[in-house]
């Protein structure tokens, strides 16, 4: 039965109270461990389409008569576009329409960052559209940009209300601590750089707006466009079957889809608006830089008594406060915690969610601080984390729906034990070391989400749901879940997805939520289809329905009889069995989180500052694993993205003008295949017995969270130097080594000055 409930909804660490309809989950969880299909490594169902170049992305959509849009963007960090004249553009060959911030409210004359869109042109070819943009006459009123986050905070230039949190009495705890450490950490701004840039192709079919878009949230785009264009939601159809990566930056509709929709309305022709790589790196979102001023105090037995953090997120021109303070509040069982998180409004591009927003940055600070604390206490880093393990949720004392972090630590031991052997490889030049870091994140998903399963007389089973597969392999995972429930092989199940007009509502693919939100809905739909098949089988063979089950493509009776599934389904002819399923509620009164630990091995050339990461072992606890092959690939991908964040990636701004200096992939250093270390990946793979009919949590984000701190801690282990600023490029490494040398010199001086 459907129920209307008031519940907490979480996406990317942001909670809101919402009314939602939930349906009871009638299915018991499957037993733990690998099953017939679920838990077995499965190749991508659409892998061959992708490998043969046959998958059609938004980038490949070419509609008859399609126009191309180019966007006029601000070239400076802070300017007002006054007196825009688009008429010169309209006089050029091929130009069909132009619009500016003077006519539409999704473009803003106040251009608060380099790359802010103020006008757009549609033309027969992209070259003509770009020529049109060049021809637009704009009077720019420039002013001095604000780029320093601390200065913005001091001036009270905030993007939103600051967020403070307190439990216990931090100051009293630190005053009574045996050891206190204090340090400032900084993380840089990094760019998503999905291989497919942000883009949309829009056209109108009567009153219906059809939007092909590279998106992580088909239904969110539908609602956003409907609202902004004054349409009914069902008059917007959103299509995205294949998409080339998002990592959080494609959660919304973006201005490019509005530009394409409006230019299409004006011209009566389809319009494509696709960002170039340069535009992508200017105006398509970024992980904001942070400043973290942290304190920790502990008793000599290693009990952490207090944690405090003053966090500044350099949010940019607009955006929201990603939870940089989250790990400090949530990861350890510490009684006294106080955090303050502020968001600086700056003349730089708006941030966007980027794979575990806030937690990647906050974990770097917290987990490095913990090792600095452990160093002063003389306590082994793994032991220090064990001693401060949180047995129940520290925010409000709720029980965890499941938590196997201690098991992750146990499995990390063999990797951690390698440190003696690794350190022994050090010589005069290359210093070797090992470091580790823990991770906490959300990833429980939630309702609503729906799926249908269609079973035909030929035995084909099709899952229908208007979800998107952003490249993570969700399509294959959904097919595995349906195949398991229906007792058939994976090859017998197809998944139709990616079109809001051709399937029920499906959740966003963000916040590690696709598997935990969609998976239970698909199982529920397959379960409904299974019940209907067994009802018919009971009538066909005069058996009691409760004695029947589906297994290995057969209808199996507990009395020993069995019949091929086709012998029943063949009777259907044109009739179909339609199963419907919905995602049930999350367990009430429980905290659903994911956990893990990573161990990194590094070598540092103390002469040049070169850092080589040799090996990373990742052990994660995300409940049941649906597809081990896909899951390992998620972990490897997360770790390599983290490697870029830790060592090489950096959106560089000119400190005076705010110009983005890293707009292309030669300047912005993504990791390549040459940078890949050995990666060892393990899962606890224990279903969360309280969470849905699957017991599976999400895995998209956890693997990127602890890597930076694990590497920085390994560098400290190798060299003794404290690296507190990302990226740890050679300059930062050499700076840290020089600081260490100066500190040693000073303490040497003190020793020398001491009277004999």
């Amino acid at each position: 039965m459907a129920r209307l409930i008031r519940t907490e909804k979480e996406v990317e660490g942001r909670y809101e109270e919402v009314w939602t309809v939930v349906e009871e989950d009638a299915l018991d969880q499957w037993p733990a461990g690998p099953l017939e299909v679920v838990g077995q490594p499965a190749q991508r169902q659409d892998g061959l389409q992708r490998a043969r170049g046959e998958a059609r992305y938004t980038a490949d959509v070419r509609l008859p008569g399609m126009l191309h849009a180019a966007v006029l963007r601000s070239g400076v960090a802070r300017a007002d576009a006054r007196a825009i004249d688009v008429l010169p553009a309209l006089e050029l060959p091929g130009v069909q329409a132009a619009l500016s911030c003077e006519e539409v409210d999704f473009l803003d004359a106040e251009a608060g960052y380099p790359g802010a869109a103020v006008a757009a042109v549609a033309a027969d070819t992209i070259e003509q559209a770009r020529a049109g943009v060049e021809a637009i006459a704009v009077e720019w009123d420039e002013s001095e940009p604000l780029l320093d986050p601390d200065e913005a905070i001091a001036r009270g230039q905030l993007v939103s209300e600051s967020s403070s949190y307190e439990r216990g009495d931090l100051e009293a705890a630190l005053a009574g601590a045996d050891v206190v450490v204090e340090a400032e950490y900084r993380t840089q701004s990094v760019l998503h750089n999905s291989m497919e840039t942000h883009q949309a192709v829009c056209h109108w079919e009567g009153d219906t707006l059809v939007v092909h878009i590279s998106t992580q949230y088909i239904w969110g785009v539908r609602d956003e466009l409907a609202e902004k264009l004054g349409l009914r939601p069902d008059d917007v159809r959103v299509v995205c079957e294949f998409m080339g990566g998002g990592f959080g930056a494609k959660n919304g509709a973006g201005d490019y889809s509005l530009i394409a929709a409006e230019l299409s309305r004006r011209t009566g022709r389809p319009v494509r608006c696709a960002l170039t790589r340069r535009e992508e790196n200017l105006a398509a979102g970024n992980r904001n830089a942070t400043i973290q001023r942290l304190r920790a105090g502990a008793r000599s037995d290693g009990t952490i008594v207090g944690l405090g953090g003053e966090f500044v997120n350099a949010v940019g021109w607009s955006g929201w406060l990603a939870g940089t303070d989250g790990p400090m509040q949530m990861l350890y069982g510490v009684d006294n915690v106080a955090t303050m998180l502020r968001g600086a409004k700056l003349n730089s591009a708006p941030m966007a969610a980027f794979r575990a927003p806030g937690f990647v940055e906050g974990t770097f600070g917290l987990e490095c601080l913990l090792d600095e604390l452990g160093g002063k206490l003389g306590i082994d880093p793994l032991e220090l984390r064990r001693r401060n393990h949180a047995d129940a949720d520290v925010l409000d004392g709720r029980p965890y729906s499941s938590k196997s972090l201690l098991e992750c630590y146990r499995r990390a031991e063999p990797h951690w034990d390698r440190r003696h052997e690794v350190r022994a490889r050090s010589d005069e030049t290359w210093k070797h070391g090992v470091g580790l870091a823990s991770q906490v994140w959300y990833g429980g998903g939630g309702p609503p989400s729906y799926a249908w399963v269609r079973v035909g007389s030929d035995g084909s089973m099709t899952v229908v749901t208007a979800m998107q597969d952003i490249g993570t392999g969700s399509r294959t995972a959904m097919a595995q879940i349906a195949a398991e429930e229906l007792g058939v092989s994976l090859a017998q199940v197809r998944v139709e997805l990616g079109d809001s007009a051709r399937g029920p509502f499906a959740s966003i693919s963000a916040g590690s939520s696709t598997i935990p939100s969609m998976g239970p809905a698909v199982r529920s739909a397959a379960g409904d289809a299974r019940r209907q098949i067994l009802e018919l089988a009971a009538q066909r063979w005069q058996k009691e329905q409760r004695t029947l089950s589906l297994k290995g493509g057969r209808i199996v009776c507990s009395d020993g009889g069995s019949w091929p599934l086709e012998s029943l389904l063949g009777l259907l002819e044109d009739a179909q069995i339609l199963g419907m399923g919905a995602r049930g509620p999350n367990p009430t009164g429980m905290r659903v989180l994911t956990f893990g630990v990573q161990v990194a091995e590094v070598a540092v050339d103390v002469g040049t500052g070169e850092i080589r990461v040799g090996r990373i072992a990742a052990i994660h606890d995300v409940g049941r694993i649906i597809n081990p092959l896909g899951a390992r690939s998620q972990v490897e991908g997360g770790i390599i993205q983290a490697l870029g964040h830790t060592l090489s990636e950096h959106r560089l701004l000119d400190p005076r003008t705010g110009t983005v200096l890293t707009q292309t992939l030669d300047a912005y250093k993504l990791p390549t295949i040459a940078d890949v270390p050995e990666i060892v990946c393990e899962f606890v793979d224990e279903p969360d017995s309280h969470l849905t009919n699957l017991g599976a949590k999400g895995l998209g984000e956890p693997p990127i969270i602890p890597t930076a701190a694990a590497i920085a801690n390994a560098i400290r282990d190798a060299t003794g130097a404290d690296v507190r600023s990302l990226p740890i490029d050679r300059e930062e490494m050499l700076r840290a080594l020089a600081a260490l040398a100066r500190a040693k010199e000073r303490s040497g001086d003190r020793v020398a000055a001491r009277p004999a």
Partner: protein
Amino acid sequence: MRCGFWRNVPWSGVWHEDRGVKIRLTVNGEPREADVWAGESLLTTLRDTLELPGSKNACEQGECGSCSVLLDGALVCACLVLAAQADGHEVTTVEGLADREELHRVQRAFVEAGAVQCGFCTPGLVVATAALLEANPDPSDDEMREALSGNLCRCTGYAKIFDAVRLAARS
């Protein structure tokens, strides 16, 4: 150098005042013709005129390898080759790597090894791997790193791409 301008190609296209250049080339074994403008890249011609969108455009300037194709058997970034330079030459794209029904061993290996995630870089990586194995049937890990470091992938973390290359080399 791969992903540099493709040199030593005599320019033989015929210039037409109104339309630009007519080029004739062999694409995936078939003779094709296209009207291109003088500055048009081979990638644009392949994707927009010859309707072969398998080669992807992700950086427009030879930094990501997503548009990797074979030009007379040599690996190039199609975005850095002028369409007119391909006049009279043979181009193989990801769509033409395998025979019509068959799969290329590299394509099969990428899927079996789980080396495909979002797949936007995959066509380029598949072509680059095919070129690598053609030149070096049994590459070492370092040779793989060298040969494929011009192909950026943001999803997989590359680990399974090593698996795929090894698998393809064995098959």
